[in-house]
């Protein structure tokens, strides 16, 4: 099967960036488990979760391809729009200083502290460590699976490039984790979340429109227009929110 990269690269890029954010968050906790409770348990929990996630992809991916494309685009596009706008909203509020930024170093310190107080393993298997690594890999991995399945099934022939984008993000984060052996706190996580929110909201809106059989001006090029549109709305919202937050709570008159 040949891949039309001219059309596929924006979706592969969106999957790469979105997955990278999730893998960075998972890496922080897996590193904490490995450093405090040992690498065997950390890697066992992570591997077990990856096997479950792979099974979910193998089960739901082919099932979705059997549903008519317009129906998939409407439902998956709607979910992608909710998901992308949720990320964009949070990134705007963080950039404006309304809610605190996500701090990987602080998350690492919190996790290592909690793992140290959990007590020693009772047998040859460290259940606490395995469960912690399994849980974080499952939670962050489920988001990656959703992104891959949603972005990949929204158009014909997109699943493979999107999966390649997510796999490349996994390899990049694991490689950085192996080299640095500490949380990737230098990754500009909020900027990434803002960009991914913009991209996913644009794809979600486009696919909802395709599902509704709307006529997009310029066809596929509308995705670029939607991306610029959401980027402008997000960029406009940040200073407005900052000004509003610094002015204090709104007085509600009853």
């Amino acid at each position: 099967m040949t891949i039309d990269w001219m059309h596929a690269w924006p979706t592969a890029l969106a999957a790469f960036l979105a997955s990278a954010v999730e893998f960075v968050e998972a890496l922080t906790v897996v590193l904490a488990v490995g450093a405090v409770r040992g690498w065997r348990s950390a890697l066992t929990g992570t591997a077990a979760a990856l096997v479950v996630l792979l099974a979910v992809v193998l089960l739901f991916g082919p099932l979705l391809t059997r549903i008519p494309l317009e129906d998939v685009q409407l439902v998956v596009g709607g979910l992608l729009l909710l998901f992308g706008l949720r990320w964009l909203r949070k990134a705007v509020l963080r950039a404006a200083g309304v809610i605190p930024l996500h701090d990987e170093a602080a998350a690492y310190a919190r996790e290592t502290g909690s793992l140290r107080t959990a007590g020693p393993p009772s047998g040859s298997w460290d259940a606490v460590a395995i469960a912690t690594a399994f849980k974080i890999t499952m939670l962050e991995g489920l988001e990656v699976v959703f992104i891959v399945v949603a972005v990949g099934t929204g158009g014909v022939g997109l699943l493979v490039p999107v999966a390649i984008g997510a796999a490349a993000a996994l390899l990049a984060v694991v490689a950085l984790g192996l080299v640095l052996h500490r949380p990737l706190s230098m990754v500009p996580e909020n900027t990434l979340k803002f960009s991914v929110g913009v991209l996913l909201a644009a794809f979600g809106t486009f696919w909802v429109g395709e599902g509704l059989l709307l006529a997009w001006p310029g066809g596929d090029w509308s995705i670029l227009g939607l991306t610029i549109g959401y980027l402008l709305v997000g960029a406009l919202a940040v200073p407005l929110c900052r000004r509003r937050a610094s002015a204090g709570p709104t007085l509600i008159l009853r």
Partner: protein
Amino acid sequence: MDTLKTILRELVGLFVDDVGFAAAIVGWIILAWLLSSLVLPPSPWGAILLFAGPGAILLESTLRRAGAPR
């Protein structure tokens, strides 16, 4: 069981942070679906309206949150 509950909560949390925000987006999609299938003739305006709704909802929701007491 606790892990399963956490996973389910996280699954819903993938799409819903602020219930009003999520409900407004879903409501807009339903409205766009009704308008496009029952009222509006096929034209690029339908697509432009589809973008304008979520854009306005995002702006309103972030501004409302920024003005809320912390």
